[in-house]
């Protein structure tokens, strides 16, 4: 490992084998950081019966699956102390310098930030989603988030809108030094967007026939994703444009609404429902269409929109969250999240596409240059270096900052912090550090690169052999 190489632990409840935006973000970021020479491990919860224990993912990414039970969609309950023994063992034996927690709903990530100061380990937090402020779930989650982020070293958000949202929810502002009655936002909040692998989303070389225009919708069929808007506008669009068809992929609680609207307006040949689509089949579904429709009511980044634009589709989307930031104006039509405006935007898109004004191959070339995982990894590495060079917060400052959370929450969280210290002292006595099985051997990047090269050469040799065999049989 070179001198500035760090040992990084990504901590999140949301990781593979679940498929999703946060999961693939963590994986791609880890893969690119490994390519830049750092050591990365991932800590997540287990998926019994078979995804348990310590696993390896390509390229040399070690994943710890810890035994915590999940309550809903892969999130665990915040039990502040039960994570400490595992966390301590893993951080000490892997010689970790920095932890990177992902997702505000991930209790494991927030607890990692809480326990980090015992080991001199620096912390970074990435927030991936937008949350409201009004409903009960949001109020609780925001309070937990504010408590966790009181003592974090840096926060990364995926868009400027998401950054504003996180700063407000997590109370990431401090009284200014000149005038304590004025609050200013912390210097350590950064915006680094997501990225996509453009090679996986290439448009088809043949141009689409202009007689039928397919509108593709690929999303989880839930209320948050604005399926009600889709249900309201689809019959109107089908009535207004006889050559337009819908291809809808995905599954969720709102599937019944779509089936009902299809029955009621007799649109069985105009609306095609694909059911759940695997991530590797997404591109094949996208190339069947010319327009991508996204009716989400809230969206912090919109990676699905980027993937569609990269595949050469013209995008129609609701103007929410971080969506206006990701694509230039001539590749996307915006609508307010109401039925009439969505109808207007889709009509506009249909006109643009039927006149042949949108070139898929040119769109792909443009989007290819916008986002790149290596750039994201480089920017994240800059954040890490800044964090490592900054001064760590000492314990008394930590307690004082925790007490500013509020009259009740401050006391509760300070009590949690102090009991955590006592539990840590107990663990230092019960499981002394010298008895730990330290990690002495890890994949060297050079060895891994050589093995990967040999495997790909063997693969191409084998393919050539099979082609040759087939050729012989045909003759």
């Amino acid at each position, binding site marked *: 490992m070179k001198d500035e190489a760090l040992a990084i632990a990504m901590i999140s409840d949301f990781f593979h084998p679940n498929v999703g935006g946060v999961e693939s973000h963590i994986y791609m970021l880890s893969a690119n950081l490994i390519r830049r020479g750092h050591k990365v491990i991932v800590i997540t919860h287990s998926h019994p019966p078979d995804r348990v*224990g*310590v696993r390896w993912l390509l390229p040399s990414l070690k994943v*710890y699956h810890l*035994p915590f039970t999940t309550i809903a969609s892969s999130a665990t309950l915040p039990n502040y102390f039960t994570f400490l023994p*595992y966390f301590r*063992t*893993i951080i000490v034996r892997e010689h970790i310098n920095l932890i990177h927690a992902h997702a505000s709903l991930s209790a494991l990530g927030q607890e990692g930030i809480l326990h980090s100061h015992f080991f001199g380990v620096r912390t970074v937090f990435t927030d991936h989603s937008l949350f409201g402020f009004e409903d009960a779930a949001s109020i609780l989650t925001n309070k937990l988030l504010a408590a966790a982020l009181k003592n974090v070293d840096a926060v990364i958000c995926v868009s400027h809108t998401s950054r504003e949202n996180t700063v407000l929810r997590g109370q990431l502002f401090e009284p200014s030094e000149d005038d304590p009655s004025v609050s200013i936002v912390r210097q350590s909040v950064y915006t680094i967007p997501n990225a996509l692998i453009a090679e996986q989303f290439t448009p088809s070389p043949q141009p689409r026939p202009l007689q039928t225009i397919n509108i593709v919708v690929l999303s989880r069929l839930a209320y948050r994703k604005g399926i009600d808007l889709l249900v309201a506008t689809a019959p109107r669009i089908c009535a207004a444009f006889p050559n337009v068809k819908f291809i809808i992929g995905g599954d969720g609680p709102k599937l019944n609404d779509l089936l009902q609207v299809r029955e009621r307006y007799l649109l069985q040949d105009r609306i095609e429902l694909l059911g759940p689509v695997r991530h590797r089949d997404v591109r094949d579904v996208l190339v069947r269409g010319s327009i991508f429709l996204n009716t989400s009511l809230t969206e912090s980044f919109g990676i699905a929109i980027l993937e569609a634009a990269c595949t050469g589709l013209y995008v129609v989307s609701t103007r929410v969250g971080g969506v206006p930031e990701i694509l230039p104006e001539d590749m996307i039509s915006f609508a307010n999240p109401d039925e009439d405006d969505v109808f207007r935007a889709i009509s506009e898109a249909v006109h643009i596409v039927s006149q042949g004004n949108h070139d898929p191959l040119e769109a792909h070339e443009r989007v290819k240059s916008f986002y790149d995982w290596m750039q994201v990894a480089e920017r994240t590495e800059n954040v890490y270096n800044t964090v490592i060079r900054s001064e760590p917060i000492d314990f008394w400052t930590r307690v004082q900052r925790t007490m500013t959370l509020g009259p009740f929450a401050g006391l509760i969280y300070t009590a949690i912090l102090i009991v955590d210290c006592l539990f840590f002292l107990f663990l230092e006595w019960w499981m002394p550090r010298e008895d730990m*099985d*330290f990690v*002495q051997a890890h994949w060297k990047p050079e060895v891994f690169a050589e093995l990967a090269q040999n495997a790909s050469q063997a693969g191409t040799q084998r393919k050539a052999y099979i082609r040759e065999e087939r050729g012989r049989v045909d003759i």
Partner: protein
Amino acid sequence: MRQTRPLLDLHPEFSVIEWPGFSEYRVENWRLARNGSGKIIRGATTWSWLDPCVPVIFSLAWSKVSSGSLVAYLLIGITLVLFVWSRCNQVLHESVLVFPTLGIQLESHRGHPSLEPLFVSRRFIHASSLEDFVIHEGLRRWDVRYYLAAIKRSSNGGLSIQVAFENILPYFPVLQEVYIGVQNAMFPGPNLQDS
């Protein structure tokens, strides 16, 4: 029969014994304290603090049960038998025996430390069903430990994992020595004379 201790400074409990025809990698159930003090931590003890207490408790309980109820006598008897059995069932040493071209055998010798082993459990894995012999990490209670695993392919195609040194669980340097030894013996590399 020749016995060597390759890791004498840090892991003197590990020895390699060369028998005619096979070799044995033996780990005895004690280790040096890992804080450098040189103290010996025994896994199998000849005398423990419970040994002198048991006759005292036993005689007190026996005299108290003067009513002659059978159940009480039986309970006391069973407790005594269980205690003696647990003291005689301690793990003395565990080994991996390597029979080149034939297979490997995982052994566990139990008994009382002052006597020869009373019970031996042996698991033989034939060379044809030995898929691989690896070092992997696993979660054990609140700890993460390295362990040696023999991956066995059964006759109907399924894989099963047998852990070597299952009760003693030595540390990584010992496992590395055994791993290298077994890999060299059971999975020899490409024959250099052919190229």
